[in-house]
């Protein structure tokens, strides 16, 4: 693996290897006072963030540091980017300084793909526009695997603004690859065109014997009893004023995960949220803090998954070579 740009087209073996590595790293660090592995000593990881982010950037930084990489954070607001430098020039500059891996977040869909074509370094997509956020899907998969054992044959319900969500796109592709069924619940205004036809991952043929891997509905109450995990998407403020739904109240009533709705889930089912949460909007305060919610597990696993990604990109290849 040279880059991690998207979960689309990732092979199941690749995903499993990444998740196994993340699990091994987690076990290796468990209970340690000094959480530092020498694996990436002398390697330089640059995080290049064109959007503000707390958790993802910090998570990559911690992941790099726990493996002894030198991590340099370049917030786009405070750099030459503010002076009008192009993404290409910024990337080439950072590469010339010796970056081994660029972790990029950018508001334009496809920015990470473009970057990978310009620079000789490894590229990790930490979120590009409304396209992909592959490490989020990987950490979600790690969390689900922990809680549910396997994803094969499980049903994951994703609720909310799928249209503008890179988290949803990454998860749909990855969950299908891992053999799960994905049920999307959203108002029709917040669903991508033709999303019911998705699922052209490398294992699509296995699915077509049974049914489509992606189904769509608009009734959350009806969906919950048959789901093994429910993933609540954040409703972004700009969407609330974009006319995609009449009011936040109506949205919350129709698509919010309330205490009552939590009761509709099977006992083993878990609740995920990629954060940052808007309590009281898409998820009730008490639900977010309930034992069914695995939101802090997601954050914890995020570090290990990102360690695994950096390891597979920067170290594993050398060992093979």
């Amino acid at each position, binding site marked *: 693996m040279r880059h991690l740009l998207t979960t*689309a087209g990732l092979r199941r073996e690749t995903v499993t290897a990444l998740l196994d590595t993340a699990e091994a790293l987690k076990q290796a660090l468990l209970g340690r006072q000094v959480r530092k592995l020498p694996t990436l000593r002398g390697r330089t990881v640059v995080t290049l963030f064109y959007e503000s982010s707390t958790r993802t950037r910090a998570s990559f930084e911690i992941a790099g540091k726990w493996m002894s990489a030198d991590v340099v954070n370049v917030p786009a607001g405070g750099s030459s980017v503010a002076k009008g430098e*192009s*993404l*290409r020039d910024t990337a080439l500059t950072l590469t010339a300084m010796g970056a081994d891996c660029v972790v990029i977040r*950018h*508001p*334009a*869909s*496809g*920015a990470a*793909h*473009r970057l990978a*074509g310009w620079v000789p370094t490894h590229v990790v997509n930490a979120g*590009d*526009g*409304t*396209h*992909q956020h592959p490490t989020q899907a990987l950490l979600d998969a790690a969390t689900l695997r922990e809680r549910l054992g396997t994803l094969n044959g499980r049903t994951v319900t994703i609720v909310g603004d799928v249209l503008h969500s*890179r988290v949803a*796109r990454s998860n749909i592709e990855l969950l299908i690859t891992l053999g799960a069924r994905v049920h999307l619940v959203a108002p029709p205004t917040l669903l*991508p*065109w*033709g*999303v019911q*036809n*998705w699922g052209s991952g490398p294992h699509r043929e296995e699915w077509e014997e049974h049914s489509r891997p992606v189904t769509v509905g608009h009734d959350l109450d009806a969906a919950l009893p048959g789901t093994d995990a429910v993933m609540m998407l954040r409703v972004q403020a700009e969407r609330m004023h974009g006319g995609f739904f009449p009011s936040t109240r109506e949205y919350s009533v129709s698509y919010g995960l309330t205490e009552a709705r939590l009761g509709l889930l099977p006992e083993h089912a878990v609740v995920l949220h990629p954060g940052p949460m808007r309590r009281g909007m898409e998820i009730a305060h008490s639900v977010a803090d309930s034992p069914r919610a695995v939101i802090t597990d997601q954050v914890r696993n995020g570090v290990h998954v990102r360690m695994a990604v950096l390891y597979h990109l920067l170290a594993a290849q050398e060992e093979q070579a």
Partner: protein
Amino acid sequence: MRRPFLLRGIRPYGAGDPVDLLVRDGVIAELGTGLDGTGAEVLDGGGLVALPGLVDLHAHLREPGREDAETIATGSAAAALGGYTAVFAMANTDPVADTAVVVEHVYRRGREVGLVDVHPVGAVSSGLRGERLAELGAMAASVAAVRMFSDDGMCVHDSLLMRRALEYTRGLGGVIAQHAEDPRLTAGAQAHEGEIAARLGLAGWPAAAEESIVARDCLLARDAAAALHVCHVSTAGTVEVLRWAKERGIRVSAEVTPHHLLLTDERLAGYDPVNKVNPPLRTAADTRALRAALAEGIVDCVATDHAPHAAQDKDCEWSAARPGMLGLQTALSVVMATMVRPGLLDWRGVARVMSERPARIGGATEQGRPIAVGQPATVVLVDPDATWTVRGATLASLADNTPYEGMELPGRVVATLLRGEITTEDGKVQR
């Protein structure tokens, strides 16, 4: 005027046995077999197909304003090398071609370069702002004699302004060329609204944004008894609207670009902005419908929407890139690949959609004339059996944003004649 010359053994419209064509004083003086070449320069036509010089109703020559991407000189060269003898230069320059001063400047630069007739298109609205009419009458009365008006790049979306524009140009004997795009439906749009854009996270440009404007404009043209031309038709649905309008005798014409005949949104996967264009590349079903409509005449003609862009405007992330692609030097070959080779058009049909109809729609009376005695020797010679590989860096345009990079395309322009003057020969500009 150069001395008379004789083209030996050419095949007008690619039909029948080869004939000789004698050019004297810029006019086709004789046409027949075994013509006497005494006193004339003799060129061996070798069975090449002869067509009336091609006419492009839709090109962006970027001058004035973006001479780093294209100039009237380089755009004219690209056009002549592509077999064109007339080009309509769109108004979205800087300054906008919305006054007699600017259109006359463009017209005069075109004459100075002299490779093709450059017909400036006048803006419909002042500054392309879509608020009030530009001085259409002054542009029509200018030396440039503007007959086609367009805010291309922007849609004349205000219904009342569009109605007034249609009515007003009727009095000028002109035509409004509409870039049909409802701006509300395409706010932030990046690619054809479909499964591919949805998966790529690119905001969708719905077909209805084009079709609804075309439908509205056809009704406005009907009521105003005015001439409407629809730029770059890109969807199967627009074809159906046009069919409806034409069946009712509404004065509507339409163009399709070579790229909408050949390319689809399948090309978007790598996010290479060379594939970014407005209207966007659509689906394979749309390209099929457009090819059929062009063959049938529902879509009247091919126009390139030649849109050069400086490298930095394409070598960036998708959403930051400017929409548009080069087209003048590749149009004929793409039409061969999509229309001639599959048997949808013969060479007479190519002459119709790339020369005769566009000349008529644009009011270029000296262009798109028959290959016949007494007519201007404005002709292109094509080798239909040749193939060539497109390389953006070797095209005459200053920019190199061709979506056909590395593609092998059929057909080669061997020579282009404008009123008896050879403008290009064997891929080289002759002046």
